[in-house]
């Protein structure tokens, strides 16, 4: 769950999707990796828990699973963020890698990770580790711009991890700077450069691009025009970047949703029939459907593995 700047509703969405999925019978863990403004627990109506991700970061606890705390919702646990840590300790590089691995090993059907704002490498890595990377935005220019910047950064980060050759890596690093000397503006420019350097890496690039399937959610829509924004952005991404995010859905601007935040209860739980809840449940069902079809594709025998 990412989306660049704060205030677009990442935490609101993370909390509500977690609840919606739990209500659909999934075992869910919501993890707050926001290092600066952790408050997912508040959205879920949990008092700041004794244990949190801070214990993992400070190496007091190595087993991420032991940091799970119950929530008022059945089947939903939370690993709270590091808000207690005023010293502002950032996890070391090794610790981050360990966290990313541990997230994937948590015993749950769905792990929902609420990312911090911004585009720090750690944020991008948490974003990329997920099966479904959700980018949340609001229908306004600043938020749209942030979403594109975030998508671009996430794609280049992923690409940089995917390519092998040193020269190509350097090229990707150069391209990450929008005002690079080589005049690489779009991924297509970059591809042309890479192709010229090494066709095998070029093929790897195309593969990475095809697999990069972030998902868009537009929050606080008020008009039909706002609803279309997701389609439009998906189209623009395809034409400009070459990868195509999926428009997962939208959530309307809803007074009950606003009130739910004040009451510290996810609106999906507070009022199932509220307009916002219906949209949120729709997104949750769609996520479930995506998970199932991907599982079927990965496991054609139909026995099923552990969805993540």
């Amino acid at each position, binding site marked *: 769950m990412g989306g660049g700047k704060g205030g677009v509703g990442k935490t609101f969405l993370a909390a509500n999707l977690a609840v919606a999925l739990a209500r659909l019978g999934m075992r869910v863990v919501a993890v707050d990796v926001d290092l600066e403004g952790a408050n997912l627990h508040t959205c879920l109506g949990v008092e700041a828990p004794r244990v949190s991700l801070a214990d993992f970061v400070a190496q007091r606890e190595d087993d991420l699973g032991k940091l799970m705390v119950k929530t008022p919702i059945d089947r939903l646990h939370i690993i709270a963020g590091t808000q207690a840590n005023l010293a502002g300790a950032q996890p070391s590089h090794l610790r981050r890698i360990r966290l990313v691995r541990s997230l994937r090993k948590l015993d749950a059907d769905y792990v929902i990770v609420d990312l911090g704002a911004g585009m720090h490498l750690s944020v991008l890595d948490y974003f990329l580790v997920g099966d479904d990377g959700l980018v949340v935005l609001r*229908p*306004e*220019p600043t938020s*749209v*711009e942030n979403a*594109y*910047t975030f998508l671009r950064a996430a794609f280049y980060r992923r690409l940089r991890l995917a390519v092998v050759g040193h020269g190509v890596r350097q090229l990707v690093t150069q391209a990450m700077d929008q005002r690079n000397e080589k005049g690489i503006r779009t*991924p*297509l420019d970059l*591809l042309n450069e890479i192709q010229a350097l090494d066709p095998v890496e070029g093929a790897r690039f*195309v593969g990475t*691009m*095809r697999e990069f399937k972030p998902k868009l959610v537009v929050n606080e*829509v008020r*008009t*039909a*025009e706002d*609803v*279309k*924004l997701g*389609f*439009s*952005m*998906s*189209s*623009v991404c*395809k*034409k*400009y970047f*070459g990868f*195509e995010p999926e*428009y997962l859905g939208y959530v*309307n601007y809803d007074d009950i949703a606003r009130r739910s935040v004040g009451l510290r209860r996810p609106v999906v739980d507070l009022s199932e029939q509220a*307009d916002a809840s*219906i*949209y949120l449940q*729709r997104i949750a*069902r769609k996520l479930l459907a995506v998970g199932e079809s991907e599982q079927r594709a990965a496991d054609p025998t139909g026995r099923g593995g552990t969805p993540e």
Partner: protein
Amino acid sequence: MMKPIEEQNHYEILELPSNARLEDIQRAYPLVRAAYEDESLAIYSVFGRDESEMIRQRVDAAYRVLIDGEARRRYDEQIGLAPGVYTAQETAVAVDSEPSEPVVGIARALREIDEDEGSGDWDGAKLRRARMHRGIELERISEITRINLTYLRAIEENAHRELPAPVYTRGFVTAYARTIAVDPHRVAESYMTKFEEVRSDRRRKRLLSSRR
């Protein structure tokens, strides 16, 4: 798979599979076109005026060819696609057959039917959700149906008190539903059941209070 816009064929420009049905093309066109309008929020910080103008022209050109059965056949031949039959009748028959290409992007989004539209009662909130999902503003419905915006809003907000007598309200709801292409009969039946319930409740209460 990754081609500059100038080299993309008409199907790629409209983000449709090459066996797209006529109705898919007709529905995809305004959506894609809208993304590249000058005032579109989606191009902000990505495409400048010249680029979006160029894309719009290509989108229009693609649409002109693909909706014309004969022109489309010639175009397919030209880009080396197997010939297809695209008259309205033929495509209507082809609905049942499986598409030979995976339906992606906009085409898939367009085919998705909201799960909550299939069953349950139709109230104002559900009508609004259906309208928003189809990308139709309330003002547009007012223009088409010539129904006062105030009444349309009252329908969506289930503000039954602000709506006129049942016979008129039924007409309004039917026209609304028809404009957003949902079954007008089913919607009106469902909406009016609740409307009448609330009305008779109110009348009963009024009666009771006047007797006291």
